[in-house]
């Protein structure tokens, strides 16, 4: 008796291949399959040994032959899968879709657009509202704002003194810190620039929970004079200004012509927009993104200065402290401060806000609106496809009935319909993802201007899951209805109906009608929204800002430092630039102003003023006006209307009596019904009382966007009040954008280190302020156009289907003497009734949802009758066209043929 030998290496290798391949074999056949191969291999080895054919090439041959087991197993698996009902259903589904290519393509495209849009908007919402912020324990981080007790919905910046008082007294925060906006001149780049920066108090990054990606944060001893010349770079600045230099940490860079040591680089996810105070996207202020961060050295001035509110504060709640408790704590401290400092703090309190709210706030309303709009389009698309499948299920009723009659289980048919819908949805899902991929890029490129956080928006795995989830639910929505119809005993009727019936199934038509009504309803809601947004946009775009925006170039400079110590030096610099501008070809005139409307850095100096000859209230209750320094050409370059008196002239020199020009809003408020020319007002300027005679009244301006209110304003002549922060306002005879670089060159001729802080055409600034409004309007507009089209297609498809079903009935009517016009009326009436119901419900729904959109409107009521009536009329008109074609076809039915067919 031979003892079984242990398997040699080659056999073991062959068996290992089997061991892997066997997993491919369908479970039922697996054991038998393994036995067969195992036996063949062993038998062959046996024979080889007997014949002494165990040379290596024979062994290799055996291994090669065994590897065929993989192909064999794969074949069995494929055969098994191909036999699966689901796969057969899917194949059948694809075949059915290919049979009607136009309808199928339309359905897929529509669904893909809906899906793509939903994913795009969802990814934005995800980045803003759902995803964890890139900060440790970010839900414990809050922003802190000052606000007036009577207007707590308005967030003001934080005064340095108030911040320091809060910090000294509060116990609610683990760390509590503030940032102050700042700018560093940087001359080592291609042109002199000012880098947006923020000076931060101790614990700022700790409060946020940010870690540097390279280097370190600031040390405690660096918040002291003489040791504070260190900076942290934002990731973007590191890339853009220093080419991503790996050795940047520890290097010295020159800022404001002083050496600073780079302590570290912040991660790219860190983009805080804390110093933005305006909370509206509709205002269109591009977010300021700091490139540099440096330690703030606290001075006596910061401790004492109360009126200014330029800081942004953040805090990390101490362990165990709730949001509400921290809020109450700060409110209590504010009340104490109010009683200690009644002059400046009497009406002020503090509010806190979760960091996420501060980041997402401005986009919340438009995003919610967009998401709702996209979802509606998706719903309409699903409705459309459902009616498509219903129509087809009717056409296939006979087929299904026969299949049931010869023994197909009913569930099998239901599943067939669902799988067909899923095939449709899956194709659409692929296409939708492609659309979303492209759209997200465009969307992000645009919106991240306003909310820097959005630059992080991507399509990630969870979004893919979201898309698949959407598709599955869409498939269920689409597949279920026709499937239910089929399973609910429609089969018996099915055989009967096609054989004898003259009228279509009432149930099915009722369902299809409900879908049409739903589609029209949603389309009306969307179209109403788009109409309201359009009207708002037009209203806003038509607002007169108080100046003529065409052919104006703007260049903003901040003049300071050694070379501009005296008023004379500053005056000389501006004189030289303006003269050199005037010698530039294409320049009509050039002026300068401190407070330039629509400029990002709006220099709004506010002062209390006294009117000569009137009893003055105490200092802290003086009426407030904005003060702007301007040259006479400024008014002419912007073509601001002169209402009374005169503009500044050369005679208003430094040594002439001080004069001022006011705007008509100020004139109305202070001298209602009187002539203000010749009146005198006094303001405090550079700690000196400055009495001035009013020599002119000009039109009012809207400074912060077309939707902002004008402010009372006093202009003083630059010659008398030389001021360093000025914007050159250059009126040109042709396209101003082309002149900007030559104008910059002229500035650098006068001073090669002068930073041109901002340079733009006035046209582009105004357009930019409208951009967010335009963006939302365009998206909602195109979505509503799509919805509109879909609803029309739905009506058309539904009527075609129902007249097709009723061919026999219509033929009978015609045979009995009904005229073509009668048939036409009947069919059109059916369609228009559905459209009418849809429009009515849609209008009611639009009214019910008006609060959702109100925040995005301007100068138009959400219940605007014109918009509502226009929407209704437009939809009914399109519905009529959609009804007409099937109706016409119905009248062409030949009664004889129709009856014979039955």
């Amino acid at each position, binding site marked *: 008796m031979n003892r079984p030998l242990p398997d040699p290496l080659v056999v073991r290798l062959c068996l290992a291949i089997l061991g892997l391949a066997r997993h491919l074999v369908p479970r039922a056949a697996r054991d038998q399959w393994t036995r067969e191969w195992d036996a*063949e291999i062993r038998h062959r080895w046996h*024979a080889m040994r007997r014949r002494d054919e165990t040379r290596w090439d024979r062994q290799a041959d055996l291994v090669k*032959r065994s590897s*065929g087991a993989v192909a064999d197993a794969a074949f069995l698996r494929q055969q098994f899968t191909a036999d699966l009902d689901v796969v057969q259903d899917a194949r059948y589904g694809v075949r059915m879709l290919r049979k009607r290519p136009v309808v199928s393509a339309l359905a897929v495209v529509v669904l893909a657009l809906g899906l793509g849009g939903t994913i795009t908007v969802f990814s934005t919402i995800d980045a803003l509202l759902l995803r964890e912020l890139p900060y440790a324990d970010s839900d414990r981080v809050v922003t802190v704002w000052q606000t007036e007790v009577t207007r707590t919905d308005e967030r003001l910046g934080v005064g340095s003194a108030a911040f320091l008082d809060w910090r000294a007294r509060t116990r609610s925060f683990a760390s509590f810190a503030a940032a102050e906006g700042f700018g560093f001149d940087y001359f080592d780049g291609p042109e002199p620039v000012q880098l947006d920066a923020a000076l931060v108090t101790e614990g700022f990054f700790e409060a946020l929970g940010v870690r540097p990606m390279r280097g370190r944060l600031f040390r405690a001893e660096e918040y002291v004079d003489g040791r504070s010349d260190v900076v942290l770079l934002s990731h973007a600045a590191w890339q853009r200004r220093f080419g991503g230099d790996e050795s940047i940490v520890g290097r010295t860079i020159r800022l404001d012509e002083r050496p600073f040591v780079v302590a570290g680089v912040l991660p790219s996810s860190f983009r805080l927009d804390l110093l933005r105070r305006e909370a509206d996207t509709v205002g269109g202020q591009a977010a300021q993104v700091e490139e540099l961060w440096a330690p703030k050295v606290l001075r006596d001035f910061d401790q004492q200065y109360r009126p200014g509110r330029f800081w942004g504060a953040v805090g990390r709640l101490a362990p165990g402290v709730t949001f509400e408790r921290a809020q109450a704590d700060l409110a209590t401290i504010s009340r104490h401060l109010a009683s200690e400092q009644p002059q400046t703090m009497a009406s002020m309190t503090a509010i806190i806000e979760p960091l996420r709210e501060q980041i997402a706030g401005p986009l919340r309303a438009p995003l919610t609106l967009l998401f709702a709009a996209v979802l509606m389009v998706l719903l309409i698309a699903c409705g459309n496809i459902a009616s498509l499948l219903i129509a087809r299920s009717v056409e296939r009723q006979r087929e299904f009935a026969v299949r049931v009659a010869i023994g197909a289980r009913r569930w099998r048919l239901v599943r067939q319909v669902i799988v067909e819908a899923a095939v449709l949805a899956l194709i659409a899902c692929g296409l939708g993802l492609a659309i979303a991929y492209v759209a997200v890029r465009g969307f992000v490129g645009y919106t991240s201007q306003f909310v820097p956080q959005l630059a992080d928006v991507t399509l990630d795995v969870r979004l893919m899951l979201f898309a698949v989830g959407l598709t599955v639910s869409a498939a269920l929505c689409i597949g279920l209805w026709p499937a239910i119809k089929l399973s609910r005993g429609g089969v018996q009727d099915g055989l009967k109906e096609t054989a004898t019936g003259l009228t279509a199934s009432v149930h099915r038509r009722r369902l299809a009608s409900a879908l049409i009504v739903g589609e029209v309803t949603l389309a009306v809601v969307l179209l109403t929204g788009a109409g309201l947004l359009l009207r708002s946009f037009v209203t806003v775009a038509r607002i007169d800002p108080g100046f003529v925006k065409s052919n104006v170039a703007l260049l903003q400079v901040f003049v300071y430092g050694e070379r501009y110590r005296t008023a004379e030096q500053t005056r000389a610099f501006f004189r030289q630039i303006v003269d050199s501008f005037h010698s530039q070809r294409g320049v009509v005139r050039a002026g300068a102003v401190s407070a330039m409307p629509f400029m990002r850095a709006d220099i709004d100096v506010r002062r209390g003023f006294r009117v000569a000859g009137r009893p003055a209230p105490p200092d802290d209750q003086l009426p407030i006006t904005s003060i702007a320094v301007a040259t006479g050409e400024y008014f002419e370059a912007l073509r601001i209307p002169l209402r009374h008196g005169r503009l500044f002239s050369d005679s208003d020199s430094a040594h002439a009596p001080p004069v001022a020009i006011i705007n008509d809003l100020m004139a109305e408020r202070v001298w209602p019904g009187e002539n203000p020319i010749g009146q005198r007002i006094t303001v405090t300027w550079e700690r000196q009382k400055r009495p001035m005679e009013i020599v002119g009244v000009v039109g009012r301006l809207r400074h912060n966007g077309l939707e902002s209110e004008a402010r009372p304003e006093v202009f003083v002549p630059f010659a008398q009040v030389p001021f360093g922060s000025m914007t050159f306002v250059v009126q040109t005879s042709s396209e101003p954008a082309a002149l900007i670089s030559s104008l910059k060159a002229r500035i650098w001729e006068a001073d090669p280190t002068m930073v041109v802080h901002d340079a733009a055409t006035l046209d582009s600034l105004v357009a930019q302020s409208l951009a967010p409004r335009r963006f939302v309007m365009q998206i909602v507009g195109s979505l509503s156009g799509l919805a509109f089209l879909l609803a029309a297609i739905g009506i058309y498809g539904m009527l075609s289907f129902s007249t097709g079903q009723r061919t026999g009935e219509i033929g009978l009517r015609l045979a009995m003497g009904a005229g073509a016009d009668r048939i036409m009326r009947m069919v059109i009436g059916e369609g228009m009734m559905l459209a009418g119901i849809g429009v009515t419900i849609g209008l009611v729904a639009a009214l019910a949802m008006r609060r959702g959109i109100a925040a995005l409107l301007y100068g138009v009521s959400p219940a605007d009758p014109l918009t509502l009536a226009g929407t209704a009329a437009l939809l009914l008109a399109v519905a009529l066209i959609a009804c007409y074609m099937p109706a016409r076809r119905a009248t062409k039915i030949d009664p004889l043929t129709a009856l014979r067919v039955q």
Partner: protein
Amino acid sequence: MKITYSTVLVLEALARGYHYGFDVIDATNLPSGTVYPILRRFENEGLVTSEWESQDVAQKDQRPPRRYYALTAEGERLLADSKARYRAASEIVPRRKRALKPLRGER
């Protein structure tokens, strides 16, 4: 059932008395990854039947029993039908048994 050159070769081999998978592979010179799927298809279509080799024979050699394939009447008919089309097949499959890769002492 799609008739290809390979399927005719396998039919022919079975008809000439090669009844085990590896033997068919030897006889036809086709790769194992081609022969086995063809055998599976034949079985599905009822052109061949399969059974396990008797336990005794296997026991003697101390190896598991092999799977034995045989043409059915339908298989024979298909072979006859397709032979005309693939005359070459009869030339490639050797008329004498074991001519291609003689396995001495076998069967």
